[in-house]
């Protein structure tokens, strides 16, 4: 095969050989440039991905440790009062009764509270107060009203299920 190629090469005229050599060199350079460009891009993407993975792995380790610590700690004791009653009492205490549209108890540990027009800051304080009672905001939808500072809110509150 090599001798065949050599024969084919030698049967070309010098000009043809020069043209073939130049074309081969240009093709080689183009292929190498393409390779370097593609490899560079792939490496850049991979580098970024590995950096994110390193951070995630580190965070995962820390979270696993924290999870083990939390599992070992005694569970928080939630108030045994009916959640609907608790929410109502906190609404009254915060002076939000006028804005309250309704409270629906889904079960003993989940209630939906709807406010028509409530001051956002007051509602936020009310939520913070509930959190200190181990009641958490599970879901909500807050819509701004035309009057600045006033919002309408539909919120689902939840408390850790008693075991």
């Amino acid at each position, binding site marked *: 095969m090599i001798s065949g190629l*050599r024969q084919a090469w*030698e049967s070309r*005229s*010098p*000009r043809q050989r020069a043209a073939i050599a130049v074309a081969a060199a240009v093709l080689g350079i183009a292929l*190498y440039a393409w*390779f*370097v460009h593609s*490899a*560079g891009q*792939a*490496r850049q993407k*991979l*580098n970024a*991905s*590995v950096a994110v*993975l*390193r951070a*995630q*792995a580190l*965070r*995962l*380790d820390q*979270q*696993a440790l*924290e*999870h*083990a610590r*939390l*599992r070992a*700690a005694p*569970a*928080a004791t*939630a108030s045994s009062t009916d959640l609907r009653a608790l929410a109502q009492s906190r609404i009254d205490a915060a002076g939000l009764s006028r804005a309250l549209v309704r409270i629906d108890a889904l079960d003993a540990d989940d209630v939906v509270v709807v406010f028509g027009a409530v001051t956002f800051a007051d509602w*936020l304080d009310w*939520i*913070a107060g509930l*959190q200190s009672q*181990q009641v*958490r*905001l*599970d*879901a*909500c*939808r*807050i*819509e*701004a009203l035309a009057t*600045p500072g006033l919002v309408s809110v539909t919120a689902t509150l939840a408390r*850790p299920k008693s075991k």
Partner: protein
Amino acid sequence: MSLLRIYGSLLDAPQRCQWALITRGDAVTGEGPLAELPRGTKRIQLVLPATQVFITLAHVPQKARHNSGPTLAFAVEERTASEPDGNQVGWLGTVDGHDALAVVDKAGLAHWRVALGAVGIREYEVHSEVLLLPLNSGEWSMSWSGGEGFIRTGEFEGAAVECGVQPAAPLSLRLMLEEARVRGASPGCIAVHAISASAAPDIEAWTRELGVPMRLAGPWDWRNAPAGAGVRLFEERARWGAFSGTTSRLRPAALILAFALAIHATALAAGWLSLAQEQRDLRQRMDSRFRATFPDAVAVADPVLQMRRKLAQARHAAGQSDRGDFLPMIGQVAAAVKDLPAGDVRVVSYESGRMTIAFSTADEAAMRRVGARLVQAGLSVDVAGPKLITLGAL
């Protein structure tokens, strides 16, 4: 493709020559000064007379075959009368394990190179008229002018045949046949191309004398040989003045460059492979860590997200706040949107650690700014449009 054949003797001053211009099988012939040679031909051959090319067999190193340097000249030193430096030797091919070499006078070729270069011909092939003769399988082929001639005895073999004493066959032809008989390579027939009817030998007498059948073939002349006939002895290439020798000078640099590029490519590939391996290892490590923490997990599709949810559950069970809770998240949102016009935040929805904020005005720059602040605060942010941002805890 057109071919210009120039018939030139190495013994004469190269000023005039006979020539033939062959285009699509038709030959136009002429004779005159070199300056009047036809121009514009793609291929040019300098055809040397049979007596000025000595073809012989020898053994040469394989590397030396493809150059006409001194190695070849020394390989045939014992077979030539002149000094090796005075000969230019070209490798033709192999015959029964031997190398067929063509030997010509170097000085004569140099004169032609200068003369042809002076008329603008710098690239041409050098041929022997012997090897232009047609050759049938099992036959030898001879050109005969009546008093002298030349014979082609193989693809790469042939020689001039000296004057015979008419009507006797030439002595050198007899010796060639003797040698062929010893080698067991006698021809089945010898085809004789006489240059004219009057030059034809007495075929029957020669056949009896030589013991080999002979036949009269048609007339033959180097001018009419097909364009593809012959074996190239040498090739003269254009020399580019100041650039002459540049290729060989640049070869070490080219080799170093190729070596450096190869190392570069290898390093790139190795770096990429190493990163890919690290990526696999990290994924595997996270997967194992999650499984070790939660051995009863049914499937681990995204250990990062799954761990995040499990940790949030554990925090809530312990009565602790989580970064994905509403209050810490809304605090970060409030800080991020503080420079937006009042009332621009229209709706905030929150569920299972994901918060969606809808804005009343579409301001992409403001959205990007808010998004960047939330990312800085350690939240995952997805700007879903000019009026919508979704975020969650990392």
